[in-house]
C-alpha cells in the first residue's frame, strides 16, 4: 500500500483512491461538496483544496483539488496550511454569495452539510452587499420540496438522479452563474428513487416534503435503527419521531444491502404509522351484529382469553409481522394450528424460495452491483424490489466502463472520460418479463412473453450454458455466452414457481460449468422468507377446516384469499380475534381487536430475501393501549412467559433450529457501553421538561425499554455504538448525514464492527 505524508507524518492508504477519500478515511476533516463516495469526483465545487509538495525540500507547494488527485506513493501534502485555509474560505464565500442564509426557516437546518462546511472553513462574516440572484421554485410532487435559491451548484442531484438512478425528468439548465436544477416544467418527479435527493443535496434545495408538516430539527428527533418492511429486500432505515409522530425516514447505511440509497416506497411509505386508520384502543363487540366499541386492555384481554380457553383455536400469521410475533402466535395455538398468512401463490413461492436458497448461493445487493452479468426472469423489479433494480442498473452502467478502464487505466472515481467513450453501451444485463419495465433501458437485450415462455427461455439458457454452441443468433445463446463469460453472474427471479425453477436451473448449469453464479429471489414483504422458515400450513386449508376461534396476526384475509372464501370462512368462525395496527376489512369483522404496534414502535427480527436476519428497534414507545403483537399474544397465554424481547427471541431460537442464530442479529438488551445504554435522543434534545406540560407540569419519567440496549432518553453512552445500534449519524463538526464517514471502516466500505444482521441460511453449494 502506498504511503502518503500529511504534515510530514506517514500514513498507509489504499492505492485506488483519491486524496480526499483517503484523508477522510484517515479521520482528517477536509470540507467538500460535490464528491460523494457513490457518485465519484467531478471537481465542480473547488472546496476540497489541499497543498501538495514536490518533495520534502519543497516548502512552497501547490494547491490542488484533493478529490481529483490520485493517491501515489510518497505524496506529501498539508491540509492545515494558511494558504489552503484561506483558499477554502474564499471558495465557500463565493458559493454563499447567492445563498439566501435562510437557515432558521430551512428544513435542512441542523443537518445541513453546507452549514457544517461553512463552520469548518471558518467563513463566518458575509461581505456580499449586493442583490442576490433568485429563482422560481417548482412543484416537484408530494415528496420533494424545491427551494432553488439555496443551491451551491455541486451537481450531486443530477449525478444521482440522472446518471446513477436513470431518472430522465430532472436535469440542469442554463450555464455559468445561471444554473438551475429541476424539471423541464413543474410536476411530480418520476423516479422511484427521487427521495434520495433529500440526502444527496448538501443543502436545502431538495427537502423531505412530508417531514415539513412536522417542524423538527435533527437534534430534536428521537431515532432508532430499523428495517424497511415494504418489500423483501430489507433495506436499513432510521425512523425519527417527535411528539409521538413519525417525522421522517432516513437511510441507514448497510454496505451489503442498501448502501447510501433507499427507494421512495421505503422513505415515504411509512405514513400509516401516523395514519387516520390507526387502531389506538382495544375494540370489542358484545355479540355478532353489535358494533365494535372501544374498551380497556384488561377487558379486551379477558374476552380474548375466554374465547381461546378450551376451544380449538387456529392462528393465522403474517409476512409483515416480526418473526417473534409469528412465533408467539405459533406457541399460543400450537404448530398444527398455525397457518402462514400467505395467499396460495405466495405460499408456494415462499416455500420454493426457501428450498432453493438452501441449495444455491444468493447475492447481496452489493454483490449484484459488482457482478459482471445478470439475468432477470419474470420480475418487474421496480415494483417488487426497487432497490434491487437500482443495484442491477449499477451493474449495467459499471460493466462496459470497467472493461474500458482495463484498456486505459483511470481510477473508477474519475471515470467521466471513460463514460463518454462507452456512451450508451449496455452491460451484460438481460431482462425477460411479461411486459415492458423501467429496467429495460439498462438491459442489453429484453424479452417479453407469458410466464411459461419466460420459464422456457430460462431453461433454454440453462441448456445453452451446458452445451455452448457456435451459433449466436438465438437470444438464449447470447445470454448464455454472456453469463459464461462473466466472472460472477446473478440470476434474479421471484413470484412464479416455474420461472423460479428455470432461474435455479440456469444457476445450476453455470455452477456445473465451474462459474460463480448466485440466485436472487425477490420476496413481496418484509418477513415472507422468515415466515416460510418458521413453517406452517397453507391458508387455503383453513377455509376447508374452519375453526371456532381464529386469531389473525397483522393480516387482512381479504388480501390473501378469494373474496368468497374469506367471507364464508369468517362467517363460520364463532370468535375472531385480530391484532393489527390499522383498520382493515378483517378488523371490521373481528369480535376483539387488539391494537398492535407498527414497525416504528416495535422491536423485532425480520428476514430478508437473502435469509439475513435483521433487528428493528422501536423509535418511540407506543401509546399505552398499543402493544407489540408478541406481548398481546404472550398475555393471552395462561401465564406470562416472556417478560422481554430477548426472552421471546431466545425461546424462538431454541424452538426453531432455523432461527438458532437470530438472537445474534443485534446485541441483546443487556448490552452496555461503559455501563450505559445507548440514547435514542441527541444530547441537544430540547423541550424534554416541557414537552407534555399541557397535561402535567411535572416532567414524566421516560418510558423504560426492557427490550433493547437503547434508551428513550438523551442520557447514556456518548461512544460510537455497535453498527446494529446506530440511531443517528453525528460526529463533532459533522451534523449532516455525511457524518456517516466517521462510522465506516473505510469510506464507502463496511461499517466499523461489521455490517449488522446475520445470514440464517447456509446453502449446500458453497459459493
Amino acid at each position, binding site marked *: 500500500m502506498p504511503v502518503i505524508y500529511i504534515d510530514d507524518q506517514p500514513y498507509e492508504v489504499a492505492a485506488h483512491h483519491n486524496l480526499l477519500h483517503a484523508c477522510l478515511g484517515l479521520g482528517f476533516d477536509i470540507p467538500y461538496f460535490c464528491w460523494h463516495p457513490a457518485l465519484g469526483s467531478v471537481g465542480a465545487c473547488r472546496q476540497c483544496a489541499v497543498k501538495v509538495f514536490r518533495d520534502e525540500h519543497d516548502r512552497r507547494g501547490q494547491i490542488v483539488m484533493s478529490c481529483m488527485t490520485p493517491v501515489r506513493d510518497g505524496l506529501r501534502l498539508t491540509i492545515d496550511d494558511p494558504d489552503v485555509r484561506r483558499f477554502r474560505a474564499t471558495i465557500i464565500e463565493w458559493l454563499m454569495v447567492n445563498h439566501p442564509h435562510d437557515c432558521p426557516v430551512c428544513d435542512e437546518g441542523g443537518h445541513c452539510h453546507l452549514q457544517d462546511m461553512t463552520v469548518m472553513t471558518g467563513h463566518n462574516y458575509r461581505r456580499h452587499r449586493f442583490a442576490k440572484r433568485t429563482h422560481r421554485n417548482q412543484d416537484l410532487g408530494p415528496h420533494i420540496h424545491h427551494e432553488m435559491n439555496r443551491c451551491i451548484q455541486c451537481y450531486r442531484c443530477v449525478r444521482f438522479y440522472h446518471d446513477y438512478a436513470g431518472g430522465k425528468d430532472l*436535469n440542469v*439548465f442554463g450555464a455559468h452563474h445561471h444554473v438551475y436544477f429541476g424539471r423541464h416544467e413543474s410536476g411530480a418527479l418520476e423516479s422511484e428513487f427521487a427521495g434520495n435527493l433529500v440526502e444527496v443535496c448538501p443543502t436545502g434545495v431538495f427537502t423531505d416534503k412530508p417531514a415539513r408538516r412536522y417542524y423538527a430539527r435533527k437534534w430534536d428527533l428521537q431515532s432508532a435503527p430499523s428495517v424497511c418492511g415494504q418489500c423483501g429486500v430489507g433495506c436499513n432505515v432510521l425512523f425519527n419521531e417527535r411528539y409521538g409522530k413519525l417525522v421522517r425516514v432516513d437511510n441507514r447505511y448497510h454496505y451489503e444491502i442498501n448502501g447510501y440509497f433507499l427507494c421512495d416506497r421505503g422513505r415515504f411509505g411509512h405514513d400509516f404509522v401516523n395514519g387516520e386508520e390507526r387502531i389506538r384502543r382495544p375494540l370489542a363487540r358484545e355479540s355478532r351484529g353489535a358494533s365494535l366499541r372501544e374498551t380497556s386492555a384488561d377487558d379486551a384481554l379477558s374476552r380474548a382469553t375466554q374465547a381461546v380457553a378450551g376451544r380449538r383455536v387456529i392462528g393465522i400469521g403474517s409476512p409483515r409481522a416480526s418473526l417473534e410475533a409469528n412465533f408467539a402466535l405459533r406457541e399460543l395455538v400450537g404448530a398444527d394450528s398455525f397457518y402462514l398468512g400467505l395467499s396460495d401463490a405466495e405460499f408456494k413461492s415462499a416455500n420454493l424460495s426457501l428450498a432453493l436458497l438452501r441449495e444455491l448461493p444468493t447475492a447481496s445487493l452489493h454483490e449484484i452491483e459488482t457482478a459482471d452479468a445478470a439475468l432477470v426472469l419474470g420480475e418487474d423489479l421496480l415494483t417488487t424490489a426497487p432497490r434491487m433494480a437500482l443495484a442491477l442498473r449499477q451493474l449495467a452502467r459499471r460493466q462496459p466502463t470497467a472493461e474500458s478502464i482495463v484498456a486505459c487505466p483511470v481510477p473508477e472515481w474519475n471515470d467521466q472520460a471513460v463514460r463518454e467513450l462507452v456512451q450508451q453501451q449496455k452491460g451484460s444485463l438481460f431482462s425477460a418479463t411479461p411486459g415492458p419495465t423501467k429496467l429495460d433501458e439498462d438491459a442489453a437485450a429484453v424479452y417479453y412473453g407469458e410466464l411459461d415462455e419466460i420459464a422456457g427461455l430460462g431453461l433454454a439458457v440453462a441448456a445453452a450454458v451446458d452445451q455452448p454452441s457456435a451459433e449466436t443468433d438465438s437470444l438464449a445463446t447470447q445470454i448464455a455466452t454472456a453469463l459464461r463469460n462473466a466472472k460472477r453472474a446473478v440470476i434474479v427471479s421471484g413470484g412464479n414457481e416455474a420461472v423460479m425453477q428455470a432461474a435455479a436451473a440456469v444457476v445450476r448449469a453455470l455452477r456445473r460449468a465451474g462459474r460463480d453464479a448466485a440466485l436472487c429471489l425477490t420476496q413481496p414483504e418484509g418477513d415472507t422468507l422468515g415466515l416460510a422458515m418458521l413453517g406452517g400450513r397453507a391458508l387455503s386449508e383453513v377455509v376447508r377446516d374452519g375453526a371456532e376461534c381464529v386469531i389473525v396476526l397483522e393480516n387482512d384475509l381479504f388480501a390473501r384469499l378469494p373474496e368468497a372464501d374469506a367471507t364464508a370462512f369468517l362467517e363460520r368462525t364463532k370468535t375472531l380475534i385480530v391484532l393489527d395496527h390499522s383498520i382493515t376489512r378483517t378488523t371490521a369483522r373481528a369480535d376483539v381487536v387488539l391494537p398492535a404496534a407498527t414497525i416504528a414502535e416495535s422491536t423485532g427480527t425480520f428476514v430478508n430475501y437473502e435469509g439475513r436476519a435483521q433487528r428493528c428497534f422501536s423509535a418511540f414507545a407506543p401509546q399505552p393501549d398499543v402493544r407489540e403483537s408478541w406481548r398481546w399474544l404472550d398475555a393471552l397465554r395462561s401465564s406470562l412467559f416472556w417478560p422481554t424481547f430477548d426472552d421471546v427471541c431466545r425461546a424462538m431460537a431454541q424452538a426453531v433450529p432455523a432461527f438458532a442464530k437470530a438472537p445474534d442479529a443485534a446485541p441483546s438488551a443487556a448490552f452496555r457501553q461503559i455501563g450505559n445504554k445507548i440514547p435514542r435522543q441527541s444530547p441537544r434534545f430540547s423541550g424534554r421538561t416541557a414537552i407534555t406540560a399541557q397535561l402535567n407540569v411535572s416532567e414524566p419519567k421516560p418510558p423504560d425499554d426492557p427490550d433493547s440496549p437503547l434508551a428513550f432518553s438523551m442520557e447514556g453512552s456518548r461512544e460510537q455504538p455497535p453498527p446494529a445500534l446506530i440511531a443517528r449519524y453525528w460526529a463533532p463538526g459533522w451534523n449532516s448525514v455525511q457524518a456517516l464517514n466517521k462510522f465506516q471502516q473505510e469510506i464507502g466500505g463496511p461499517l466499523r464492527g461489521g455490517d449488522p444482521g446475520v445470514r440464517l441460511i447456509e446453502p449446500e453449494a458453497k459459493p
Partner: protein
Amino acid sequence: MLNAEEKQLIEQAVRHYEHPRAACLEALKIVQERRGWVSDDDVRDVADALAMSPAEVDSLATFYSLIFRRPVGRHVILVCDSVSCWIMGYERIVQHISERLGVGLGETTPDGEFTLLPVVCLGACDRAPAMMIDGDLHGDLTEEVIDQLLVTYRGKKME
C-alpha cells in the same frame, strides 16, 4: 408540431451519428432557423424525435446562449462585449443602439423588429467594436454606421 421539412432535416442529421441524441444540438438549430426561437412545445417535439426526455433536450438548449428559449425579434443584434471591443468602446455602441431602439440588452422592441443581446466574442478584434445582425458581421462601428444599419434592416424581411 415539427413540420415535414424539419422532420426530414432532423432525420438526416441523426444519420451522421451513432446515437440519435448526438444530433440534439443540430435539431435545435434546424428548429430555430425556421421559427426564430425554440418554444417549450418544440423542446418536447425534438425530444420525441430523438428518443430523449424534454429535460435532457432543455438542459442542452438552455446551456447555449444562442439557442433562444424565448421569442426574439425579426432581427437579432449581437453586440460583442469582449476585451478588444471593450477597449474600443462597445459600451458607447450599446448605449447608442439602446437609445435608438428604446430597449436594453436582452430585450425586444415593441414592434418585434429587433432583439439586442450581448455576445462574448465575434472573432473580429481587428474590426472592433463589432456586432452581428442575423449572421452578418459589421465592424468598425460608429453611431452613423449603426443608424444606417438599423434603417437597412428595418426595411429588410427576414430571409
